[in-house]
C-alpha cells in the first residue's frame, strides 16, 4: 500500500507542474497586449511601456513561467491588477467559501444518490425502481443555475425559509452558516445525486448477481446484512471514482452557485477577473481550483487502492 501511495504521489507533482504550464501557456495565448487592454487603447505609449516593465511582461515567456513557479512554491501567486492586493491573500479569503460549498453539495449528492441507487437496485423492476431512475434522469438533465433560481423563488422569496444569498463564516454563526449553504448545495448536488443514483444502482445490480451473494443468503444471513455488508461494500469501489469526478464538477460548478447566491468564493473571483481581464488573478484562481481537484483525485485513488487491493499491484 505504501509503495502504491508513493508511486501515486510521484505522479501528482508532474501533474501539478503540467497544469501550471498549461495555464501559463493559455495566459500567453491571449490575443493583444494585456497592458493595452488594461490601460485602454488611447493610453500613451510611454505609460504602457512602463506598466509592461512593472508587470514583467517585457521578459520572455519561459522566464516569467519559471519565476511564477518559484514564487508559487513559496505561496506567492503574484499581485492582482484590479484589486491591488496579493492573489494568494485574495484566494485565501475566499477559499473556505468554495470548499464548504463543494463539500456540502457533495454531501447532498451522496445523501440522496447513494440510498436512492441502493433502493432502486434492491427493488429492481418495481415502481420504486422506475421512480428512482426517472427522477435521477430528471435531476441530471436540469441546468444547475435554473434549479438554483427556482429554489430561491420557492424557498426564499415565497416561503422565506432560507436567505436569498450571501455567506456567513462558520466561526461567526454556525446556524447561519448552514442556512446560507442549504439552497446552493442542493442546487449543485441534485445533478450529481442523479448521476450517483444511476451509477450506484448499476454497480449494486452487478454485485447482487455474484455467486458470493447467493452463498451469503444461503448461509441464512439477514437480507440487510447481505445488502449492506456483502453487496454495498463491493459495489462502493467503482462509486469512489465517481465521487471524485463529482467533486470536480462541484468545484467548477461553484462558479454558478457563487454568482446566483452572491457568495464571495474563488469561482466568482475567477469569473470577475475574467470579465475585468485581471490576468494574475485568473491564473492564480484557476491554478488553485485545479490543484485542489488534483489533490482530491489523489485522495480518491488512495482510497480506491485501500478498498480494492487489486489496484495496488497493477
Amino acid at each position, binding site marked *: 500500500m505504501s509503495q502504491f501511495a508513493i508511486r501515486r504521489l510521484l505522479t501528482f507533482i508532474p*501533474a501539478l507542474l*503540467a*497544469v501550471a504550464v*498549461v*495555464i501559463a501557456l*493559455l*495566459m500567453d*495565448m*491571449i*490575443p493583444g497586449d494585456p497592458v493595452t487592454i488594461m490601460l485602454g487603447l488611447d493610453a500613451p505609449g510611454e505609460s504602457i511601456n512602463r506598466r509592461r516593465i512593472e508587470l514583467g511582461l517585457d521578459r520572455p515567456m519561459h522566464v516569467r513561467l519559471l519565476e511564477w513557479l518559484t514564487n508559487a512554491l513559496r505561496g506567492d501567486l503574484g499581485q492582482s491588477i484590479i484589486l491591488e492586493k496579493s492573489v494568494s491573500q485574495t484566494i485565501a479569503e475566499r477559499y473556505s467559501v468554495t470548499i464548504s460549498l463543494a463539500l456540502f453539495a457533495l454531501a447532498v449528492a451522496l445523501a440522496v444518490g447513494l440510498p436512492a441507487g441502493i433502493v432502486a437496485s434492491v427493488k429492481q423492476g418495481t415502481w420504486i425502481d422506475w421512480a428512482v431512475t426517472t427522477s435521477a*434522469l*430528471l435531476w*441530471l*438533465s*436540469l*441546468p*444547475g*443555475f*435554473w434549479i438554483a*433560481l*427556482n429554489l*430561491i*423563488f420557492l424557498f426564499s*422569496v415565497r416561503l422565506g425559509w432560507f436567505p436569498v444569498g450571501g455567506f456567513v463564516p462558520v466561526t461567526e454563526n454556525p446556524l447561519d452558516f448552514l442556512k446560507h449553504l442549504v439552497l446552493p448545495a442542493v442546487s449543485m448536488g441534485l445533478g450529481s445525486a442523479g448521476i450517483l443514483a444511476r451509477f450506484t444502482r*448499476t454497480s449494486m*445490480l*452487478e454485485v447482487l448477481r455474484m455467486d458470493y451473494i447467493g452463498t451469503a443468503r444461503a448461509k441464512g444471513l439477514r437480507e440487510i446484512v447481505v445488502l449492506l455488508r456483502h453487496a454495498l461494500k463491493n459495489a462502493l469501489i467503482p462509486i469512489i471514482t465517481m465521487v471524485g469526478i463529482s467533486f*470536480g*464538477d462541484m*468545484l*467548477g*460548478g461553484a*462558479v*454558478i452557485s457563487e*454568482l*446566483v447566491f452572491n457568495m464571495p468564493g474563488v*469561482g466568482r473571483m*475567477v*469569473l470577475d477577473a*475574467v*470579465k475585468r481581464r485581471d490576468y494574475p488573478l*485568473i491564473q492564480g484562481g*484557476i491554478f488553485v*481550483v*485545479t490543484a485542489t*481537484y*488534483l489533490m482530491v*483525485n489523489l485522495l480518491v485513488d488512495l482510497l480506491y487502492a485501500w478498498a480494492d487491493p487489486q489496484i495496488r499491484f497493477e
Partner: protein
Amino acid sequence: MIRETHAVDKIPTSLSDRLRWDSPWRQALRRLRRNPSGLIGLTILAAMTIAHLGAPLFTDLDPTALDKRAILQAPSPEHPFGTDRYGRDLLSRVLYGGRISLLVASIVALVTTCTGVILGSLSGYFPRLDSTIMRIMDLVMAFPTIILAIAIVAILGPQLLNILIALVTVVTPRTSRVVRGVILATKEKEFVLAGRSVGAGDLRIIFRHLLPSAVPALLVRQTYVFGISILIEGGLNFLGVGVQPEIPTLGAVVAEGRQFLREMPWISFYAGMAIALLVLGINLLGDGLRDALDPRMKV
C-alpha cells in the same frame, strides 16, 4: 420466433435472404421502438427541434426587436411568455435561443466524434502513441470542466466559434477514451488477427474491423455529449462568458430574468425549462439507445 432463430444463423448471401435477415442494427431498431423511454425522449427532442428550427412558424415577433411600450410585461395572449426589460418578446427569444443550443450541441457532438475516433484509435491501436495521447487527455481532464471552458472563452473571446472550441476541448478526452477502450478490447480478437494474417494494413484493420465495434458505445456516448454540451453552453451564456450578447440564447435569457426573480419569475422559468426539456429528451433517447444497442449494458 422464426425471425429470432434466423438472427443467430450465419450471415446470408443471397439477396432475398439478406432482405429477410435480421441484422444487429435492425434488431436494435426494433428494441428501440419497443423502448418507452427512448420513444418519449425522441418525441420530446423532435418537438423541441421543430419548435426551435421552425421558430418563425410559431411567432411573428423578432427576438431582438425592442419595444419601449411593452417593457417587463406578464404573459399575455400577445406575449405568451411575457417580455423582458427592453420589451423584447420572450417566446421568440426562447424559440430562437434554442437554435444556438441545438447548433452548438450538434457541432460539438459531430466534431468530437471525429476527434474522439482519431485520438482513440491512434491511442488504442498504436501502443507507442498511447501513453502520450492519454497523458494529454488526462491533463485536459485534470481541470474542472466549466473552469477550463471559462478560461478558454475568456482567452479567445466571447464568440460562438470559441464556445465550440472550448466544448470540443473539454468533451474530447472522455469520448476518445470510449473509442480507445473498445479498440484495446477488440484488437487481439481472432477476426482481427485473421484480417492481419491475410495482409490487411493498419488503416483497413482500424476502419473495417475495429471501429465498427466501437459504434454502439460511441453512439450512446455522443448522445449524452449532446446533452452535456447544451448544459455547458447554457451555463457559459448564463455566466456571461458565452456568445456575443446581441444573439439570444437560453442561458442569457435565464440570466436576464435573475434580477427580476422576485416579481417576474417567468422570465427565467421558460428559458430554463427549454434547456431542461432538450437535455431530458436527449438523455432519455440516450438511455433508450443504450438499452437497444447493447442489451448487456442494461442491468
